């Protein structure tokens, strides 16, 4: 992951390459750096969502999670989510970074940042992005809990499922 430019503290950059905004990495995530990657001088708001590994799930005491991704498709899916969000919130800029490998309790598994001139679009685009990540990103969590392990399986990924996309839009308004 790129080191943190200090856009949040006032040094702006207009260099927003796709590769830096959408990433899959084994490195610990840096929410401030992800946020900085989408902020420009016209932005009045940047929202960040940080997904964390929690210590319980479905009545089980979780010990750690192993995340796996189909990396090139995950990156292009994040780009797709950015493009989808741009159709609804054209002024918002998104970044999505997902971590893979073994993550301990409390560590960040995903960081999403959305920047916009006004807060409403930033909040909405950020929420939309995490809903879509859960629907269509080729990423899997292998939960290790007290007494065993299990692959968590959620949605069948289908980016062309318009009903799912509409559901994601509805959750943002």
């Amino acid at each position, binding site marked *: 992951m790129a080191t943190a430019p200090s856009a949040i503290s006032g040094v702006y950059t207009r260099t927003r390459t796709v590769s830096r905004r959408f990433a899959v990495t084994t490195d610990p995530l840096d929410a401030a750096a992800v946020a900085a990657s989408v902020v420009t001088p016209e932005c009045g708001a940047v929202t960040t969502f940080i*997904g964390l590994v929690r210590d319980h799930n479905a009545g089980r005491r979780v010990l750690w999670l192993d*995340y*796996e*991704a*189909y990396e*090139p*498709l*995950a990156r*292009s*899916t994040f780009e797709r989510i950015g493009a989808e969000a741009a159709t609804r919130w054209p002024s918002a800029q998104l970044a999505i970074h*997902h971590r893979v490998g073994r993550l301990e309790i409390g560590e960040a*598994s*995903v960081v999403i940042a959305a920047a916009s001139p006004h807060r409403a679009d930033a909040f909405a685009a950020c929420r939309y992005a*995490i809903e879509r*990540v*859960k*629907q*269509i*990103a*080729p*990423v*899997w*969590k*292998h939960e290790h809990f007290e007494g065993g392990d299990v*692959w*968590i*399986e*959620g*949605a*069948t*990924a*289908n*980016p*062309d499922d318009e009903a799912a996309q509409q559901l994601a839009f509805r959750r943002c308004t």
Partner: protein
Amino acid sequence: MHVTVRLFARLRELAGVSELRQELPDGASAKTAWESLVRTWPALAEYEPAISCAVNEEYARFTTPLKHGDEVAFLPPVSGG
């Protein structure tokens, strides 16, 4: 023709491999590749209603025709975030 098949998460564990080379007849689709996998590893069959596939790193339909050298990936239901 030969294609490269990639398996992820529990599909990978059920098959015991993450990547394999598969020989398929000309005109084969992603579905043909999946059916061949299920013949080798019948335990994969339970996933048939729930999987997605990708061809050359893009989401694709099971009817997508394959060509020599393609990479076809089968994806169990996702759980990122």
